[in-house]
């Protein structure tokens, strides 16, 4: 990964009138790079927020629209429950619990790195190059691209559904562990979805027209997780548990909270794996991103 070099080695003066040794640092260490990335992200996201505010009315409208659009999925579930009492053995509050967690986790990832599905477009029109000549991590620049607060709409909607679920769930025996598991789930789930977005963007370096494939895993994954795993074929559940570990976003930990049986006879402790799975996914996505960027830099447009 080539970042092992200890950071902040000052390079000597190099002729010329405009030396800037006071602020030109040498290669950065790993943590400095992370810090630099976060700093870059904040700066660019702030610029986008201010750009959006140039059209305030449009911002309000699109935020409301985002809220309503993401709510359609829950409306569908409510409509289903106007005809039935249980779906796959689950009550409406139980499904709302799954739904809320999925929506918040996905909404967070969508807010933070959701624009990365535009990477293929940036590669095609050549604007990625303008990011590569800046002294800031490309990943942070691409992730912050078109940062849009209107995406809070989905998170808000998810929070409302989760709130309803928590109020309406009456046969859950809350323990400290279960209470703690809820925020852990949301954060790890968000991180897992972030990894999916980053991995998908890395794929777009290779297949630049195929941004829609990503939707199957992001939007498709979020939809899948809204329903209990028991509804789906065993092979599908196996796939999203062991191969593409979306099951750790909410299914496994949420089933623990709800006191429901696990799919695939998994042991109980898998409910506490989400942080580890999230870390693994992020590491893999980071590697994929590096590989993708390297391939772009060797093949060009």
């Amino acid at each position: 990964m080539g970042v092992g070099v200890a950071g902040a080695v000052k390079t000597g003066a190099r002729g010329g009138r405009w030396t800037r040794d006071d602020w030109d640092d040498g290669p950065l260490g790993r943590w400095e790079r992370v810090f630099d990335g976060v700093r870059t992200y904040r700066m660019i996201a702030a610029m986008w927020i201010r750009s959006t505010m140039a059209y305030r009315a449009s911002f309000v409208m699109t935020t409301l629209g985002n809220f309503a659009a993401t709510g359609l999925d829950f409306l569908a579930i409510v409509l289903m429950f106007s005809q039935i009492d249980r779906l796959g053995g689950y009550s409406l509050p139980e499904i709302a619990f799954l739904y809320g967690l999925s929506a918040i986790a996905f909404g967070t990832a969508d807010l933070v790195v959701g624009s990365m599905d535009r990477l293929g477009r940036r590669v095609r029109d050549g604007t990625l190059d303008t990011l590569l000549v800046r002294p800031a991590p490309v990943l942070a620049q691409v992730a912050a691209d078109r940062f849009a607060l209107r995406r809070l709409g989905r998170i808000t909607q998810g929070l409302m559904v989760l709130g309803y679920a928590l109020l309406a769930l009456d046969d859950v025996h809350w323990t400290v562990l279960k209470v703690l598991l809820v925020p852990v789930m949301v954060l790890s789930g968000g991180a897992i979805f972030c990894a999916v977005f980053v991995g998908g963007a890395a794929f777009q370096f290779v297949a630049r027209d195929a941004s829609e494939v990503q939707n199957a895993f992001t939007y498709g994954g979020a939809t899948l997780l809204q329903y209990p795993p028991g509804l789906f074929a065993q092979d599908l559940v196996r796939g999203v548990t062991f191969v593409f570990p979306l099951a750790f976003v909410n299914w496994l930990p949420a089933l623990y909270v709800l006191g429901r049986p696990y799919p695939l006879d998994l042991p109980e402790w898998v409910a506490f794996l989400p942080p580890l799975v999230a870390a693994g996914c992020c590491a893999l996505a980071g590697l994929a991103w590096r590989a993708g960027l390297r391939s772009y830099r060797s093949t060009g447009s």
Partner: protein
Amino acid sequence: MRARLLRFGPDALGKAGVVGSGRLYAAVAAGGFRRYATYRAATLAGVFTNTVFGVILAYTYIALWDERPHLGGYDQSQALTYVWLGQALLTTMCVMGTGFEEELIERIRTGDIAIDLYRPADLQLWWLAQDLGRALFQLLGRGLIPFVLGAWLFDLSLPASPLTWLAFLVAVALGVLVSYSFRFLVALAAFWLMDGAGITQMAWLAGVFCSGMVLPLNVFPGVLGEVVRALPWAALIQAPADVLMGEADLLGTFAFQAGWAVALLGAGRLLQVVATRRVVVQGG
């Protein structure tokens, strides 16, 4: 994907003035078809995504119909057929937008529309031809494969009679017409609105909810169900699906679709006249 599509606006029309207008619009439709056919990777990606969504929805519908067999008058295999028809027709009917309307709104916003209005070709017919070409491509390119895959993975209820399939295609064609005429209205609204973002979003919401993409319209309860089944969006997916599964009175369904098509096309024509006058008064 859109950014890469060539501008295929009415500019290409100037030299075609001598050609008979029927042939002209056929050429425009062929252009619309080709334009979408160019992006093979994007089409493949779309097919994949439609299939994934089809699978997810199919399992939720199985659970739903397990609870309530014969919900909305469908048995389970009809419900599954509905899921896969929905995925097949989603892009054909432009339920989620991203058809010609974005481009038309952009032309209105930039004022290029003034040029279009002075051209010998009719604005509404031009874009209709283009949209029919697009719809045909997306039916074949994006609709067919997910549907076949769905039929292979799940037990669908498909008719044996070729006549039913023919009737289905007629219903699809009428549905495309309704879809087009609605989106034409949406696009023309850009003459009066600052930017088209708000109205396209509303159209998107209404389209997804009222077309039966989230749930078949005949499952919608009570008055809500009666209302959505009477709205034009019922012509997009619900109507062709019912025709295919033999759940509809053919003539009644066609009349419903054609009625909305005529009404919306007429409204579009009216709006176009008013808009043209407005452009002429403002001098473009």
